[in-house]
């Protein structure tokens, strides 16, 4: 459709003469426009699995979630901030600081694991409230406040840890990021429970997608053509079930994956269905209009930053548990991974646009590429070069894609 309207004079002839290529063009057009990010993800996975044989091994796929879940957790909060047309540069430092606080409670004072977790989360909330105050109440741009926060909380992390790392956490705290659920439903050679959980999730995803498609149809909105829609579901299902089957051959269902799934669902609902979440989109779309409409812009901005602090605390716990230690230099550059995940996932730099699902896939792309480069043993210098290029190209592609379709429309 769009390809033909772009060149109206040639439309009739080329469409009639080459129906086959026109159909392919139509398909490519649709896939690019709707599922560009998903497509990119699949391409990256295929490329990595060809390049590195170990990439699809059960142990590596298990590792992937253990190692990179923090990016996805942070991206959930960052998306909210970015949709508000703000930014948070401090999360890496906050991850270190909250992890440090947990370590002091658990390692240095020998208190139970849940007190360590609580201390880290409360610290995260306090950090968020601090930054939210300056942004929402005083009105300093988030960029500045969190740039200050990056330095401030990095320093506090170092002071808290007295410049050395604290370890080991051990026990249940360690289990947060390294625990598994296995064998509840039995199975030999693979874990039935893991596969069942994933199957339920996939069915849930398919039903939800179908219902939203049906709703859009009812409202006469544009939807993907049915074959394409089915293809999208099938791709997601295949990727997910393949993943489930592989990790079920390893250590089973990571605890962290369950935590992650719960967070994604909760934040998906918060952003999509609560007046808080819709307010976030309204503020990002037109601050003045939101204000005049009685959206509590300050209140929402404040809580978005508090939430970011909270999630940085969660990531701090996850990361320190994974490492089994708190380090003064933990989390350097994590904010950039989270920001990159959002932008790769289609968030707009000017606010108002961005989806949880997109940010999650963006985060996964960052994760699998990092993982692939580590498997290949690429040097420490090359890795950021490639990540940087990917971020730039991904956003450039997104822009090009939008511009092209808007000209056609």
């Amino acid at each position: 459709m769009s390809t033909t309207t772009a060149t109206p004079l040639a439309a009739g002839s080329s469409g009639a003469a080459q129906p086959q290529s026109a159909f392919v063009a139509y398909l490519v057009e649709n896939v690019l426009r709707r599922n560009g990010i998903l497509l990119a993800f699949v391409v990256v996975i295929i490329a990595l699995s060809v390049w590195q044989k170990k990439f699809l091994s059960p142990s590596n796929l298990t590792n992937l979630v253990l190692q990179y879940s923090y990016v996805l957790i942070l991206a959930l909060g960052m998306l909210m901030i970015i949709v508000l047309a703000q930014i948070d540069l401090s999360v890496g430092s906050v991850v270190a600081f909250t992890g440090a606080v947990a370590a002091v409670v658990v390692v240095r004072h020998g208190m139970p694991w849940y007190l360590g977790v609580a201390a880290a989360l409360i610290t995260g909330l306090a950090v968020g409230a601090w930054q939210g105050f300056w942004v929402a109440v005083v009105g300093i741009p988030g960029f500045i406040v969190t740039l200050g926060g990056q330095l401030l909380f990095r320093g506090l992390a170092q002071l808290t840890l007295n410049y050395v790392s604290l370890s080991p956490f051990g026990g249940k705290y360690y289990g947060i990021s390294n625990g598994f659920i296995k064998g509840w439903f039995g199975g030999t050679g693979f874990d039935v429970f893991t596969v069942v959980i994933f199957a339920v999730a996939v069915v849930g995803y398919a039903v939800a997608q179908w219902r939203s498609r049906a709703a859009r149809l009812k409202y006469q909105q544009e939807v993907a053509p049915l074959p394409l829609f089915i293809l999208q579901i099938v791709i997601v299902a295949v990727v997910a079930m393949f993943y489930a089957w592989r990790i079920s051959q390893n250590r089973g269902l990571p605890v962290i994956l369950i935590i992650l799934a719960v967070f994604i669902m909760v934040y998906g609902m918060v952003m999509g269905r609560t007046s808080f979440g819709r307010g976030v989109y309204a503020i990002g779309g037109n601050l003045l209009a939101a204000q005049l409409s009685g959206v509590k812009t300050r209140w929402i901005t404040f809580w978005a930053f508090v939430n970011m602090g909270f999630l940085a605390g969660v990531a701090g716990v996850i990361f320190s548990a994974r490492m089994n230690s708190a380090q003064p230099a933990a989390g350097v550059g994590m904010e950039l991974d989270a920001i990159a995940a959002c932008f790769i996932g289609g968030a707009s730099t000017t606010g108002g646009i961005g989806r949880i699902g997109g940010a999650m896939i963006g985060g996964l792309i960052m994760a699998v590429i990092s993982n692939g480069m580590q498997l290949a043993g690429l040097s420490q210098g090359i890795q950021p070069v490639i990540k940087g290029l990917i971020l730039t190209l991904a956003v450039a592609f997104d822009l090009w894609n939008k511009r092209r379709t808007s000209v056609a429309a």
Partner: protein
Amino acid sequence: MVEPLVTMRGITKHFPGVLALDDVDFTLAPGEIHALMGENGAGKSTLVKVLTGAEPFETGEIRLAGNPAPVINHSPQEAQERGISTVYQEVNLCPNLSVAENLFAGRQPHHGMFVDRREVNRQAARIMADIGVDVVVERQLGEHSLAVQQMVAIARAISISAKVLILDEPTSSLNEQEVARLFELIRKLRDDGMGVIFITHFLHQVYQVCDKITVLRNGHLVGTYAIEALPRRDLVAAMLGRAFDDMAAIHRRSEDEVDRGGAPVIAARGLGVRGGIRPFDLDVYAGEVVGLAGLLGSGRTEVARAIYGADAADEGTLVVKGAPVKHSPIDSMRAGMAFCPESRKDEGCVQDLSVRENIVLAEQTKRGAFRLMSRAEQDRITREYVDLLAIKTASLDTPVKQLSGGNQQKVIVARWLATHPDFLILDEPTRGIDVGTKAEIQRLCVELAGEGMAILFISSEIDEMLRTCSRLGVMRDLSKVGELVDDEMSSSAIMSKIAGDEAGDD
């Protein structure tokens, strides 16, 4: 007599260096559409801002129906809670949300802790149906036309508080059909007993819908009149404080006066942009004002952008004063072109810079960053054009955002005149400004052409072009469909050309 909805008495307000409102009275009764008229800087916007709490005032009192004591609104939200809603010229909604969400932003019905989307959509559909606008409320606002967005803004305003509705230039981005729909809606609201304050620069629209007119001039109240008591001519006189004939005295140049001996200043041959303007030919000679007529979106601006190089042409050639030119805005400027764009807010003035900086901007760019202009030279140029165009500003250092719309428009025109162009493109130079300034800009065009400048003049108002231009290019659906010269030019000829029914004309 019914109790008025709004009674403002003795309102006085200063801005730094200016008396914005001087002892102004204003009364709005239920069931009336009340036009607030005046030139730019007369105090219309300020009066409305005082009423809605966007600006404080110094003396006077405001009474609202239902409130025994005088009322002071401290913010637009507060005014909204008291039943006063404003719909601004620029649509003030969130384009990234659905129509329904915009209608209910900040007050969605809930189902437990979640927004009840079904209820939001249902109620929104009912509201839009009530005002007779057929729209799919689940779709994103940004996907709809500006007119529909405007209607949504009004729907939102009246669904919140159905007493006083202020419409600030609501029609300036709408086409005629859309304006008709809007007026239908406003009349319906009036018949339901609402009070409507209507601010516009289109005089004929005032006579289409309004019941009363209040005229302001230089911050003073001139008077409040019933519509029948103030014919158009008297309205203009009241606004300007001088006789109507003054401003009608523009004598456009005739084609005979144009010397076509030499090369045209601009000669476009088959110039076209893929996905944009279709290939067109256009010659503009020195001493000539050529107009471009057509509906909104017919390609008028696109022609200008293609000539200026703001849109890169994919085909055709452009010859300037006999020499082919490379195609980019800076090359065009060096070749003696100047382009005064349509939207002064987005593409025109740099709001935070001073009048001086705005005026010398283009000339400085043309000279290059390393050949700085001395302060004295900047002052001299600025002073010259501030005087020439009678720009009302407290000083040369005043930030442009503090100027009224018409004066901002003049600043942009001044910027381009300062580059001493051979070819000046004016895209809607008079939109949203008052009659007095309009006439000044039109007269200036004719004078400049008389001095040998070539001018391309784009406007939505046919009257204005008939007064100013000696030749008209007519645009339809991104194509140039014809030209009209001198005697062929009349409203009806232009209309039928735009409509495309010249074949079965008479």
